[in-house]
């Protein structure tokens, strides 16, 4: 049945820290590497060494320019920053990709909330990809079935792997520790605490999908204003860029040399 389970006891998902993601794409590469040999069909590439290569990926990293708002709610161009933004399936509580599926291939597990595709039952109609607001699903051009993040279901419960490897491949490979895996239904899990502490957010909440994965917004840069947090120590980066006044011996030297003209 492609109806959704009623509140799974566990909600396994990812918490992604936009403050420290460096945009290296290692998570995407390791995702492709693991999942091309793991669950279901391989993630195929088309014309991989040719002029117009394409392929199936379950995780892609976009980069955005963010101009934070100042106290007055105006964009402060001097505080502009790049936000690297990894995007994969959010394993939504109200996943429309599941309910639109005509064959029952797309389903959400009642035990841990992971959204999966039974590739043997998938007809490749593509409607689930259309129903997803986040672009989390890609049809594999070779196999003709829908591929998506499995939350590495073949790693996280895999007792043949050392315990530290029983995490999604993207989490395990992140060199900046920007990706975290855990149970978001448990308020005392590390990921839930992190979300509470840092004000983790949903992507496109107005779409009504109730995603499980959360994103941690960038921390305010030191000396700059965080949005709406009411911190008073606002130092404009432009001011910081001005020549500072030297003191002591260097100050005397600066003063004396200036006088020499």
């Amino acid at each position, binding site marked *: 049945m492609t109806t959704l389970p009623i509140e799974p006891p566990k909600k396994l998902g990812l918490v992604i820290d936009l403050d420290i993601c460096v945009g290296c794409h290692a998570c995407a590469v390791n995702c492709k590497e693991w999942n091309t040999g793991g669950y279901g069909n391989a993630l195929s590439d088309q014309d991989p060494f040719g002029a117009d290569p394409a392929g199936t990926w379950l995780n892609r990293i976009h980069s955005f320019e963010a101009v934070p708002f100042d106290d007055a709610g105006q964009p402060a161009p001097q505080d502009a920053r790049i936000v690297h933004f990894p995007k994969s399936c959010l394993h939504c509580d109200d996943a429309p990709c599941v309910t639109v599926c005509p064959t029952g291939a797309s389903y959400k597990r009642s035990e841990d909330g992971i959204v999966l595709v039974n590739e043997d039952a998938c007809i490749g109609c593509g409607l689930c990809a259309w129903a997803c607001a986040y672009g989390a699903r890609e049809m594999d051009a070779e196999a003709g079935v829908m591929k998506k993040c499995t939350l590495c279901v073949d790693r996280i419960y895999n007792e043949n792997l050392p315990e530290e490897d029983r995490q999604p491949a993207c989490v395990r490979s992140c060199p900046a520790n920007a990706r975290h895996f855990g149970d978001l239904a448990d308020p005392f899990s590390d990921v839930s605490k992190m979300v509470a502490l840092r004000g983790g957010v949903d*992507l496109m909440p107005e779409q009504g999908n109730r995603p499980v994965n959360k994103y941690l917004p960038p921390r305010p840069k030191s000396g700059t204003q965080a949005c709406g947090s009411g911190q008073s120590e606002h130092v404009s980066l432009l001011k910081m860029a001005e020549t500072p006044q030297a003191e002591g011996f260097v100050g005397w030297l600066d003063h004396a040399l200036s006088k020499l003209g």
Partner: protein
Amino acid sequence: MHPAKSVIFFTTISGAGFGLIALLALTAGMGHISWGKSWELAAVGLALAVSGLISSTFHLGNPQRAWRAVTQWQSSWLSREGVLAVFTCGLFGLWVVAGMVGYALPDMLGYVVAGLCVLTVFATAMIYAQLRPVPRWHTWLTPAIYLGFSLSSGMLLMVMLHPHYDGMAGGALGCLAIAWAVKALWWMRAAKADVRSGGSDTATATGLAGYADVRLFEKPHMTKNYLMKEMVFVVGRKHANKLRMIALLLGAAVPASLLGLSLVIDGHVFVMVLAVATHLAGLFVERWLFFAEAEHVVSLYYGR
């Protein structure tokens, strides 16, 4: 959204087929058609409906498993559409075959089949209307246009195949007017229903709403991917106005004029064949635009 030819053909031709079947079933239900004599009318309706359904399987990655699509009718509009289409065609076919061999099933069936046709076309439209990430489709006007064009094309076919009643051409003209009036409403709403109209923008898409002004700096990759091909389809949008005029000309003006002509000249079957053909050609253009102009919120991740 990517306008797949098979899906354009499916939604227009199947719609015309179910429109014709509904009108034939009502006429037969009122006792004006007997299947023993007029089975070929039913055959045309079934051929259109079924060829549309078969065409819809051409865009599948694994069409050999298409039968599985009838299993999830409790939750999926696509599945409901499949179940209703198969059931409607089956019941109608049974009724016609029974009539042909001289076993008359109750006339009541006419109303049942007509109702099932309406539900089938409604379910087809709901496949698109249910999609919240596509603001242009996510409206009750979407099932209204699908039903309107199913009726107009069915009615034109009816005048072509079975022009036995006074005022049928006038009725067809009225159906054309209603269908295109609803489409005009849909277009008026669509003009305001761009990708951001549902409250989503690049800031909500990245979770940075309220924190910063956000714009795309760099895409994840240099080349195209499945998402961009399917949902960030922008080819031909610049010709949208011209195509809209072509759709109106072929889909409304020409068939309306031909309907008028059919009233005053002999040999009007040929005129009506032309009217049906141009109307369907106009609907192909209308349906191509329906897909090509629809914007999906995932395009916000790609700098739209």
